[in-house]
């Protein structure tokens, strides 16, 4: 089922009367049967958005539709959603089994089946041996898994997940997320998945939505958003290590950083902000490129070598940071102190105007 | 005791009517306060009565205490749900009367109607039953109390009556016989004072000087710390105000306490408190003085006839607390200021002699019994017959001996009914009175066996005699409900007692004036 938000706004007023626009006039259509990853910095309004969709918070303005039906005024229990809370919200007095059974009982699912489904889902999240424990007897990750099981077990029409994997170890995270993906694919439940882990978002989502300060920045297929960010915020937000951002200018169809040419363009002359992802660099083994730096640190993690270059503020036009990073193949065998000439791989040059929008 | 029949109001006609007793099933509800332990005798009378009238059921309910009883009847009046009959204090009835809830009993008392019992299952089948009541057989003061209400009707008849008598420590008196005789007071060799004439306050003061040692009770000198304890400070106030003609209240509900005589009286009491002549139980943080009487702290103690036995020391007390050991006890009438009514007496107040006119007075107290208006005629009739049965000569005597109350009928004193007091001991009421009379006549030196049952009834018999002797000058308490500017008689009695307690607890306070207590009392009783 498609979820449609129109002009959705949520304002919190805290004790000292300050207003926080946690969700600000959001228009968003989540296509039916898709898994959407909702990404954004801490406090940008992700949880709030989910709660609005769930009907747990009341919007100050705007409308929500599930398919054709407006659900703006529908109470949460009538919306048919599954929700994994960021802090689990397990019922403390119930065992794991009871926690998972609870939504099924509410749906008046036949007892035999309910028990069956509970056991299945518990196995899925690896809790089969803990069904009779109370939440406080579980570790953080185990609690999170119970929360996931509880949301999934009832096969909801819409599944909302608020950082559901943040406390799981990599392997389990991978497993669970693939399981979620699988269930989602099979059941075609429209799913919104909040995560701060972009890798996770990008690998699992059909589309991702990037939010900032309650406002949607960009929506699209993961790779496309990664490859073609609409603004500097998105560019910066996605990618790890972060994109390198430089002060640059366009002069005679050439893109210059600190006077050094890094590429060509068809745009008119102007001051620009240039973004190049670490992996957008290639080592110019012929040492011809004017874009060269002395390497300060070399980190090899697994299969990549990260070259870290420390720069004086403003040196080389680098913005924000005092370092920039390039990731190159481990084969190059570069050592700290080496002088490396960089090329920018084709299509890896992102040009933004000074307000941060893509050119 | 002079018993005068009230010839003025009795109008016994010679023509008696014979009528049919109603024979439908009748339930008579009867509210009282007698706890489960004490109502056995009452229950027995109920059974007997029901045997006499098989169509009648008496449902008796204990309301635990007088306050609850009164509250429940009052709230019941509000919704038209009252018992057929109930016992109650005069002020209770005064309250019920203002709402018109109680039935005047004159219609029965003065009735000449007679009924023939035609129910063959009755234990009195074939007998003739009278409704009228022989008023001349009742102690006058009781009657006065019960017809004091508006219009002079009887709204209740006396049921369970008691009075106050004074216990004295005869051993202490006996130890000082020479001095007492020297002071002009007649006393027997074994320390008995007169049982016919009460002590006067002048005599009390004399005795006080002889047998009181304010420094404390002393077993070698045989002196007590205080002379006279008065259990009920309310009774002390009320009785004394009568003895002094000081003005207290009247049946119209007027509060008459704001006068010089009363102030004098309170000042006099205050000085007597100060001199250890009179003491109240608060001195020992007690409600009753009997324990301290037994301990020897005080030589004389005025208390209810019903509490006689609490004044007798015996071996169950720890010897160390009995400062004078186990002593002999005698009972006397309550002290008076004058020996004949409306005569003068002189007391010293604030260092000067004051002469006043006074009368004799002793309190009479205890519940009466009456019938409520809302009951059916048959219920009321049977209720009345039941009351008559309860206060019949034999039953009032029986009740008296069993409970410590006094018979309400004079004829009880000569009743020939043998009353079973214990499984092996039965006697008539006059024989019962005779126990003390014999004892006194022998100056205490009777030759009864130790196992003689009479010992068990000696003291009850003493107070019964004393009570009978002072019945001459019994006074009743005016009963009235509160008006829009003053409190009712029950409040007045309580405040009177509190007034004295307040004065007592200020003994020794410099510059204290009993007027403070009186003013507070006035503030509480009038507005």
């Amino acid at each position, binding site marked *: 089922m498609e979820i449609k938000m129109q002009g959705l706004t949520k304002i919190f007023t805290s004790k000292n009367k300050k207003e926080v626009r946690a969700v600000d006039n959001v228009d968003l259509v989540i296509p039916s049967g898709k898994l959407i990853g909702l990404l954004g910095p801490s406090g940008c309004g992700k949880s709030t958005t989910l709660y609005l969709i769930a009907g747990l*918070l009341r919007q100050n303005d705007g409308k929500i539709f599930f398919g054709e039906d407006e659900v703006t005024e529908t109470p949460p229990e009538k919306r048919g959603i599954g929700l994994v809370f960021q802090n689990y919200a397990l019922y403390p007095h119930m065992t794991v089994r009871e926690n998972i059974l609870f939504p099924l009982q509410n749906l008046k699912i036949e007892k035999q089946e309910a028990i069956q489904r509970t056991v299945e889902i518990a196995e899925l999240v690896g809790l089969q041996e803990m069904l009779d424990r109370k939440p406080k007897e579980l570790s953080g990750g185990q609690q999170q898994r119970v929360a996931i099981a509880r949301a999934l077990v009832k096969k909801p029409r819409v599944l909302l997940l608020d950082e559901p994997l943040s406390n799981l170890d990599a392997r389990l995270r991978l497993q669970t997320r693939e399981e979620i993906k699988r269930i989602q694919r099979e059941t075609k439940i429209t799913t919104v998945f909040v995560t701060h882990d972009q890798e996770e978002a990008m690998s699992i989502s059909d589309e991702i939505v990037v939010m900032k300060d309650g406002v949607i920045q960009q929506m699209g297929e993961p790779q496309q958003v990664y490859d073609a960010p609409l603004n500097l915020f998105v560019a910066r937000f996605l990618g790890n290590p972060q994109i390198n951002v430089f002060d640059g200018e366009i002069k005679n169809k050439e893109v210059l950083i600190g006077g050094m040419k890094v590429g060509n363009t068809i745009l008119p002359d102007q001051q620009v902000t240039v973004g190049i992802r670490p992996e957008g660099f290639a080592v110019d083994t012929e040492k011809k490129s004017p874009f060269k730096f002395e390497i300060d640190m070399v980190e090899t993690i697994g299969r990549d070598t990260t070259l870290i270059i420390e720069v004086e503020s403003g040196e080389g036009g680098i913005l924000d940071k005092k370092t920039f990073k390039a990731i190159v193949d481990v084969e190059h065998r570069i050592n700290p102190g080496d002088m490396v000439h960089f090329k920018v791989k084709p299509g890896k040059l992102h040009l933004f105007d000074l307000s941060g929008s893509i050119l | 005791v002079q018993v005068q029949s009230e010839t003025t109001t009795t109008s016994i006609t010679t023509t008696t009517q014979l009528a049919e007793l109603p024979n439908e099933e009748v339930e008579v509800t009867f509210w009282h306060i007698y706890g489960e332990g004490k109502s056995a005798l009452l229950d027995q009378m109920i059974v007997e009565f029901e045997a006499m009238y098989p169509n009648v059921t008496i449902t008796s309910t204990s309301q635990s205490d007088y306050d609850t009883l009164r509250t429940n009847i*009052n709230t019941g009046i509000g919704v038209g749900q009252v018992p057929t009959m109930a016992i109650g204090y005069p002020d209770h009835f005064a309250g019920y009367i203002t*709402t018109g*809830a109680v039935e005047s009993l004159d219609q029965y008392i003065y009735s000449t109607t007679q009924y023939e019992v035609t129910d063959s299952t009755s234990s009195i089948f074939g007998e003739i039953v009278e409704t009228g009541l022989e008023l001349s057989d009742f102690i006058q003061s009781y009657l006065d109390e019960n017809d004091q209400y508006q219009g002079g009707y009887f709204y209740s008849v006396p049921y369970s009556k008691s009075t106050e008598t004074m216990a004295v420590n005869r051993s202490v008196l006996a130890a000082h016989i020479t001095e007492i005789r020297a002071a002009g007071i007649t006393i027997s060799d074994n320390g008995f004072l007169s049982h016919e004439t009460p002590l006067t306050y002048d005599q009390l003061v004399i005795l006080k000087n002889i047998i009181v040692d304010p420094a404390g009770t002393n077993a070698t000198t045989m002196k007590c710390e205080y002379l006279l304890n008065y259990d009920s400070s309310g009774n002390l106030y009320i009785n004394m105000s009568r003895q002094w003609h000081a003005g207290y209240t009247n049946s119209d509900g007027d509060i008459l306490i704001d006068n010089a005589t009363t102030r004098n009286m309170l000042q006099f009491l205050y000085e007597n408190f100060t001199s250890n002549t009179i003491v109240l139980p*608060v001195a020992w*943080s007690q*409600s009753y003085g009997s324990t301290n009487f037994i301990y020897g702290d005080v030589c004389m103690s005025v208390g209810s006839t019903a509490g006689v036995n609490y004044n007798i020391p015996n071996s169950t007390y720890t010897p160390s607390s009995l400062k004078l050991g186990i002593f002999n006890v005698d009972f006397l009438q309550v002290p008076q200021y004058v020996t004949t009514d409306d005569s003068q007496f002189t007391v010293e107040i604030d260092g000067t002699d004051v002469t006043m006119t006074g009368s004799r007075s002793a309190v009479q107290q205890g519940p009466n019994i009456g019938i409520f208006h809302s009951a059916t005629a048959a219920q009321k009739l049977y209720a009345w017959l039941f009351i008559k049965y309860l206060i019949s000569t034999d039953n009032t005597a029986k009740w008296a001996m069993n409970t410590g109350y006094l018979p309400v009928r004079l004829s009880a004193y000569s009743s020939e009914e043998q009353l079973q007091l214990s499984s092996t001991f039965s006697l008539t009421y006059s024989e019962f009175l005779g126990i003390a009379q014999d004892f006194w006549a022998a100056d205490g030196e009777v030759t009864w066996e130790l196992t003689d049952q009479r010992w068990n009834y000696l003291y009850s018999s003493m107070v019964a005699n004393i009570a009978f002797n002072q019945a001459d000058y019994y006074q009743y308490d005016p009963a009235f409900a*509160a008006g829009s500017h003053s409190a009712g008689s029950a409040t007045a009695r309580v405040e009177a007692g509190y007034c004295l307690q307040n004065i007592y*607890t200020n003994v020794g306070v410099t510059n204290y004036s009993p007027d403070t207590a009186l003013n507070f009392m006035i503030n509480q009783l009038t*507005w």
Partner: protein
Amino acid sequence: MEKKNNLRAWIYLAPLLILMTVFTFYPIVNAFIISIYKDYQPLANNGAGIITGYTLQNFLFIFKNQLFWISVKNTFVIAFVSVPISIFLSLFISVALKNIPKLKGFFQTIYFLPYVTNAIAVGMAFAFMFHQNYGLFNAILGWFGIDAINWIGGTASWTAQMGALLIYTIWSGLAFKILVFTSGMQNIDKQYYDAAKIDSASKWTVFKRITVPLLSPLILYISITSMIGALKAYNSVVGLFGIQMGAQPYSMMTIVAFVYRYVSGYTDVGYISYASAAAIILFIITVVFSLIQGVVSRKRVHY
């Protein structure tokens, strides 16, 4: 959640409201009306009751009554001394209970017992404990070389009586408060105590900055209800001193005792009106104090 559930809420409240309307609101409204009846005799006229008009004189009656002022004084002393002390003490006991490694259940059980006891027994026991010569309290004072005090004897001073009354009042309210606080403390997440340990908080700091604030709703609850209770003090005085309300008559009189005195004489002309008027005055006093309490604590209560 945030939507107004008017209808639903009223359904939940229906049983309460029906019962209260009949047995609480109606009598209260009635009391207000009765308080302005003139010469009201509720039972006269065969139970229909009669009045001769309406008046505010009943309130004047109260103010002119010396006993009322005695009651006000005593009541205020009881309320303002016993409430803070008993709250503090019970908090302290609850915290102590929480902090002991062993015998917790044992003590808790004992503290619980007063609920299964009988008021008469307690009154007698206390009267004995306050006995001037043989009582427990004077024995304890004796250890510290303090002379025996006449607490509740017939000639006891006002201060001593009030002292005894306060001790008794505090004692009898303690068990309930301990119960509420211990069960309240169980609801505090243990993690906060762990965090406080990590933050090197002393026991006192933990008490002041963690336990008390997290219990603050309950503390407010207890302080409001015990303030109300203390302003309605009556049973404790009767328990200790009997119906004369003091070692000397009325020396420990309280406002509710004053009300009760006139309620129980309701058959008398105007008494129930006086009682209602006094009750209304007490009601106003209580409301004022509760409002003050509410305002003062608003900032400090954390929900």
